[in-house]
């Protein structure tokens, strides 16, 4: 018997959601005599209709309905700069609404049943208990392709020091960030409640002089990730073109395409030129934005080759993106991200 599909009877009565009865959310007919009759009108994923949760959790549901987790606008925002006006309309109709939007997280995806990815899921998180959080069974699925496995070290590199110290997603990415603040953001970069290293780690109070000087000298020039990313992180190589997508480990330092001046870790997000060929979109403005984007690599370490030695960057130029490394047939904007490390005045 696969218990994952059954409600743990001990939970009924302890949880107000379950005490209201199955039909309260799942509809169907809870006084019917036969299985067929009972299941007529059954709603498998009740929280897909956010209004259902809003009956009791009105404020959160209202904010959540505008959050990036629910709208998935971030995916659209990443692509739209490559598309002409007509192409964007076609993209919205043929791709975003039919494909990207299917990835939205409902309330239940984080609080009841782990989200299936690629059609595979683990089912109920804890016997249909309504849980507050369980990052390893929720965040880990949707964000498991890159961030989560980087964070825990399971991707093959070194785990993030915050994970080593027992911190999970919610410890940095607050409830307010997860649920949204009521603003319909287009990109995660606009979200005001997203975490920042400096929220916890103030510079200028370091006990070691070398650390204090390094932070002061690189302030505004290099992102925290630029020095403290522990090593290789996951880089996509293609975009579900033909049969599958592939990722490879990589590490690249270059200019942040959003400000054009800060050195930071870049992640390859290729959006191959023929990604939407099947739906008749050739991406007429493909070269308007690069294929490498600033990334908050989730493999932070106190000590890295770059924090141990100035020479790692200033003499050896280790990890700096080069023209030879750029993907073939990529955006013409990629070249603008390449930067050469400045030599030291000794």
């Amino acid at each position, binding site marked *: 018997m696969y218990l994952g599909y059954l409600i743990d009877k001990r939970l009924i009565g302890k949880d107000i959601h379950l005490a209201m009865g199955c039909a309260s959310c799942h509809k169907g007919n809870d006084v019917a005599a036969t299985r067929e009759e009972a299941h007529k009108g059954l709603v498998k994923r009740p929280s897909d209709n956010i209004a259902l949760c809003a009956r009791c959790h009105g404020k959160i549901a209202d904010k959540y309905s505008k959050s990036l987790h629910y709208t998935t606008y971030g995916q659209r925002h990443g692509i739209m700069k490559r598309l002409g006006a007509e192409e964007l309309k076609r993209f919205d109709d043929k791709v975003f609404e039919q494909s990207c939007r299917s990835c939205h997280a409902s309330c239940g995806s984080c609080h009841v049943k782990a989200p299936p990815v690629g059609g595979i899921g683990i089912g109920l998180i804890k016997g249909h208990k309504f849980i507050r959080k*369980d990052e390893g069974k929720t965040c880990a699925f949707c964000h498991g392709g890159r961030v989560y496995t980087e964070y*825990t070290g399971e991707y093959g590199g070194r*785990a993030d020091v915050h994970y080593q*110290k*027992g*911190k*999970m997603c919610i410890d940095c990415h607050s409830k307010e960030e997860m649920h949204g603040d009521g603003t319909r953001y287009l990109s995660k970069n606009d979200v005001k409640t997203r975490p920042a290293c400096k929220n916890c780690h103030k510079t200028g109070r370091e006990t070691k002089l070398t650390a204090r000087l390094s932070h002061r000298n690189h302030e505004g020039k290099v992102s925290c990730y630029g020095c403290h990313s522990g090593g290789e992180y996951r880089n996509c190589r293609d975009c579900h073109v033909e049969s599958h997508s592939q990722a490879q480990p990589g590490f690249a330092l270059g200019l942040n395409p959003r400000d054009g001046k800060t050195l930071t870790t870049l992640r390859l997000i290729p959006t191959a030129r023929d990604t939407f060929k099947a739906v008749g979109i050739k991406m007429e403005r493909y070269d308007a934005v690069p294929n490498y984007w600033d990334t908050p690599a989730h493999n932070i370490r106190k000590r890295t080759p770059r924090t141990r030695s100035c020479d790692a960057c200033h003499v050896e130029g280790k990890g700096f993106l080069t023209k030879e490394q750029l993907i073939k047939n990529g955006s013409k904007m990629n070249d603008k991200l390449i930067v050469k490390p400045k030599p030291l005045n000794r």
Partner: protein
Amino acid sequence: MKKLRIFALISIVFLFLPMAAAARDVAPLVTTDWLQQNLTNPRLVVLDVRKVEEYKAGHIPGAVNMFYGSWAVKRGDLLNELPANDDLFDTIGSAGIDGNSIVVIVGKNDSIGDRFDMTRVAWTLKYAGIDNVAILDGGQNKWVKDGKAVATEAVRVKAKAYRGKINRGLFVTKDYVTSRLGKAVLLDVRAPAYFAGKEKLPFVPKTGRIKGAVNLPVGQLYTPEGLYKDKAALAALATAAVGADKTKEIIAYCDTGKTCTSWAFVLADLLGYQDVKVYDGSTMEWFKDPNAPSEP
């Protein structure tokens, strides 16, 4: 000049002589009953090396979490390598461990592979100068199976500034192994099919074993319930494979330097073999060199 050479030779011998004979205040393998009775010992640190998610789902009361990946890292293309000494000391200190601590390592025991996390961490702690290291026989699974109390609140520890003496001889390099071929006992702890060159893991460049190695598979360490066999049974297995001379140099290896710590720990800490080393690079590194002596 001659005196200088003798001094250098003696220094090298001491440098690579493991600290197997160091005094212990705790048995190398402890039972769940022993641990339960000693949980209030102020010197005790119960070190849970499972993933953070597993620890938060339920752990031994008072246990601190420092998951396996904190103790063994990927370096280049080699898995399960030692962290840099300063990182290792930070990890030890942030787990609340110091030179006076009695550390009991707790891992999971769902499969045979899980058990080696505990011995690799134990060997690493010994390398970093912590003498009183033990393993909870059966790990967290046995604790739960025995119906003992479980906590879910993460334990916050006061970090200590730890700087210990590194026992460099506990982990050896490819060059050192090469220099000891035909002199030391090379102990291959992999399954017989791997030892015989019939099978290999995908990341190991080729099949075979280091030339002259003897085989003592890790599968022989445990009872069907996943606990360590009793000392007499383990001693008989060890004697048959590496001999009864407790002073002979033994270099254990596997594929990545993790699995072999199981027999290394048992030989050195339970059975009293005085000169046991681990070849960290193991076959993953050895067979990258086409000229490295191997057989069959």
